């Protein structure tokens, strides 16, 4: 098997010394973490390694020697000295890595490899350079085969390249000491920069604890108020479950409690989620404030209130026309006159009721709208869901029409289908959920046929009413649906993760990629290992926040089926509740 040496790019220009790292026997790879410079005292090196080992639970060792020959210095003595070091730090295999002639030529020897004595010539060695900083900071996203996202905090027995990532992440302590630190052992490895800014970070860390405590106390108070008995009285929970504003407010409250919970985030995934929630809240409120400012500046609310009542009137007027048209001979269809008149009058009366209701409301509209506008400072999503609720309330008559039409139509379709079965001498067996054959009496057959005929002839009239009102209803549902889509988008967009992917692509790693560096015959193969960033679609998929609505998603075919059989389409939850 080929021996692989993972070597950090930041150490390529380091002085000669010892290689410190971890040996992964299953992969037959050596992960070099740092270079120890001369002079050192062997016992201190061993102490340092033991300390890091204890902190990170990772088996570190001195893997070999590193020789960096600048220019054409004859370094015969050094070479022999380095060979001698192998006797002090025993390790199998013992690596001898050498960079010669101004850095263009690399050579690597592995003593005591391959392990089995019977093997022929020394096995080939492969040098793989990696960027220590990127590997340390990146979070490896294992491919989608692992369903559990919590698998990110790798268990000790990780295979393959994950082992390299794991090793680097666990020996973080080794990188703490910086360049100017006067320690007993001089190391060369990646150095973090920006010590100054970390004061601010420390301050923020100190302050965050009490802030979180206070805010979470306030939030718990709020939720305690929400949970009090008064709100458990009958109509309130029902209304709350129907209003999308309440849903959205509850959702946001959940976000806030999650954000300010005093517990520390355990895994990087959870931490990322917290930050994402924070940014999504921030964006939401910022957008809401912008909307509020715009509304105030343009005096839109007044205009809106003035326009609302005429618009509602106008809609009612149009509906009346539509009904009148239906009561005549719509599109030249000849309908059952009596039924047509009854239905038309019924709906007309409804519209009349509705108009008087709107006129009763008209003095208060501006005040209501004004308060709705204020709610935008809680976030754009709240304002949008309020808007959706208002639309729902203003088009309540359309909803009613739809429900009446659908119920009638549904009744008709079911009646027709069961009479059709009777016609063929079959019946629906409820116990076994299947169609059985059955012999009917003559009377039964006669009555059934009679009813079937009546239903068939009345079907077109009802179907037309149903069709028209369903189309109206679908229009309203489409408007509301697009509003909800917008809300969901703001609610669930992982802003921070996307930003991180944009600015620091290496932080979210999907894997690695290799590039072959120029190769000379007889020398070890050199590869450059780079982080392969996660694609945007996967970032969004992985870190998407759960959206608030638990609305079941209907497929198009299911929707069409429901429409055809006259089942109610939009407030599905209502139906589920009835079945319970």
């Amino acid at each position: 098997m080929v021996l692989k040496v993972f070597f950090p790019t930041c150490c390529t220009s380091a002085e000669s010394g010892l290689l410190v790292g971890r040996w992964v026997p299953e992969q037959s790879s050596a992960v070099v973490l740092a270079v120890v410079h001369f002079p050192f005292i062997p016992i201190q090196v061993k102490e340092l390694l033991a300390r890091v080992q204890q902190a990170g639970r990772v088996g570190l060792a001195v893997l070999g020697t590193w020789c960096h020959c600048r220019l054409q210095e004859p370094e015969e003595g050094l070479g022999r000295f380095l060979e001698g070091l192998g006797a002090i730090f025993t390790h199998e295999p013992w690596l001898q890595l050498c960079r010669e002639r101004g850095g263009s030529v690399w050579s690597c020897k592995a003593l005591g490899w391959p392990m089995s004595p019977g093997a022929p010539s020394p096995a080939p060695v492969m040098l793989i350079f990696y960027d220590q900083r990127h590997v340390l900071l990146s979070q490896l996203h294992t491919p989608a085969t692992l369903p559990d996202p919590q698998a990110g905090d790798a268990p000790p027995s990780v295979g393959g390249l994950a082992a390299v990532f794991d090793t680097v992440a666990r020996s973080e302590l080794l990188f703490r000491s910086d360049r100017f630190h006067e320690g007993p052992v001089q190391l060369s490895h990646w150095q973090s920069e920006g010590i100054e800014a970390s004061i601010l970070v420390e301050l923020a860390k100190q302050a965050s604890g009490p802030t979180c405590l206070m805010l979470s106390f306030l939030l718990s108070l709020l939720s305690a108020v929400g949970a009090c008995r008064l709100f458990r009285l009958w109509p309130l929970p029902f209304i709350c479950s129907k209003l999308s504003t309440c849903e959205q407010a509850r959702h946001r409250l959940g976000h806030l409690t999650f954000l300010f919970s005093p517990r520390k985030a355990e895994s990087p995934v959870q931490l990322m989620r917290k930050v994402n929630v924070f940014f999504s809240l921030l964006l939401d409120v910022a957008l809401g404030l912008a909307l509020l400012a715009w509304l105030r500046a343009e005096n839109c609310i007044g205009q809106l209130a003035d326009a609302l009542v005429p618009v509602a009137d106008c809609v009612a007027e149009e509906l009346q026309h539509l009904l009148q048209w239906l009561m005549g001979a719509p599109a030249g269809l000849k309908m059952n006159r009596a039924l047509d008149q009854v239905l038309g009058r019924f709906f007309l009366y409804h519209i009349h009721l509705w108009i008087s209701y709107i006129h009763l409301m008209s003095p208060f509209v501006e005040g209501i709208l004004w308060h709705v506008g204020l709610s935008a400072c809680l976030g754009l999503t709240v304002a949008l869901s309020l808007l959706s609720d208002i639309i729902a309330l203003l088009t309540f008559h359309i909803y009613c029409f739809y429900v009446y039409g659908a119920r009638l139509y549904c009744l008709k379709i079911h009646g027709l289908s069961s009479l059709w079965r009777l016609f063929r001498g079959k019946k629906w067996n409820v116990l076994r959920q299947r169609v059985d054959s059955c012999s009917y009496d003559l009377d039964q057959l006669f009555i059934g046929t009679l009813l079937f005929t009546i239903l068939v002839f009345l079907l077109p009239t009802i179907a037309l009413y149903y069709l028209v009102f369903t189309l109206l209803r679908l229009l309203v549902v489409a408007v509301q649906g697009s509003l909800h889509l917008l809300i969901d988008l703001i609610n669930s967009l992982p802003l921070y993760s996307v930003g991180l992917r944009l600015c620091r692509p290496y932080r979210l790693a999907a894997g690695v990629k290799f590039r072959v560096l120029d190769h000379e015959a007889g020398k070890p193969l050199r590869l450059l290992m780079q982080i392969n960033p996660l694609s945007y679609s996967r970032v969004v998929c992985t870190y998407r926040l759960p959206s608030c609505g638990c609305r079941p998603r209907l497929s198009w075919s299911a929707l069409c089926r429901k429409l055809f059989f006259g089942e109610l389409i939009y407030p599905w939850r209502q139906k589920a509740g009835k079945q319970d």
Partner: protein
Amino acid sequence: MEDERVFSDICGGRLALQRRHYSPSCREFCLSCPRLSLRSLTAVTCSVWLAAYALFTLFENSVILSAAIFITLLGLLGYLHFVKIDQETLLIIDSLGIQLTSSYASGKESTTFIEMGKVKDIIINEAIYMQKVIYYLCILLKDPLEPHGISQVVPVFQNAKPRLDCLIEVYRSCQEILAHRKATSTSP
């Protein structure tokens, strides 16, 4: 060590296969399609603009013309960035893994690296594609739960779709490396 040979894809187009042998344990195969030809680009642009001009004479609305320009530009950008793949590379490194890279005409590269531990084998398989039955090279991945099972089939050179002779060439080389892996992994 590098050489280049010319093959054809299943529709008769020209494909160039570059083979680079970096070392006995590391080989690279690079299939490049012909670049976007000026002729087809001109043809498509002209046809879109002519259609837009015809609509313009019909409706006398200049928005159509500007829309046509935008559509052409955006379409070209989208085509170069998301659709047109110029080069597909298979890099196989013994005991490390297999890397598949496809470079788009705009310079975007998408890379997948499969660790050798997950690779079960590389094979040539047959599939029904559109109205054709074609051969394709694919990598079989091991199922982590079941040692002899296959969890996934990763097709290689999915865009170029070379013919069988080219696939056999690549297949042989890959099998040499895989055979080496098997020989060493069983000997100790």
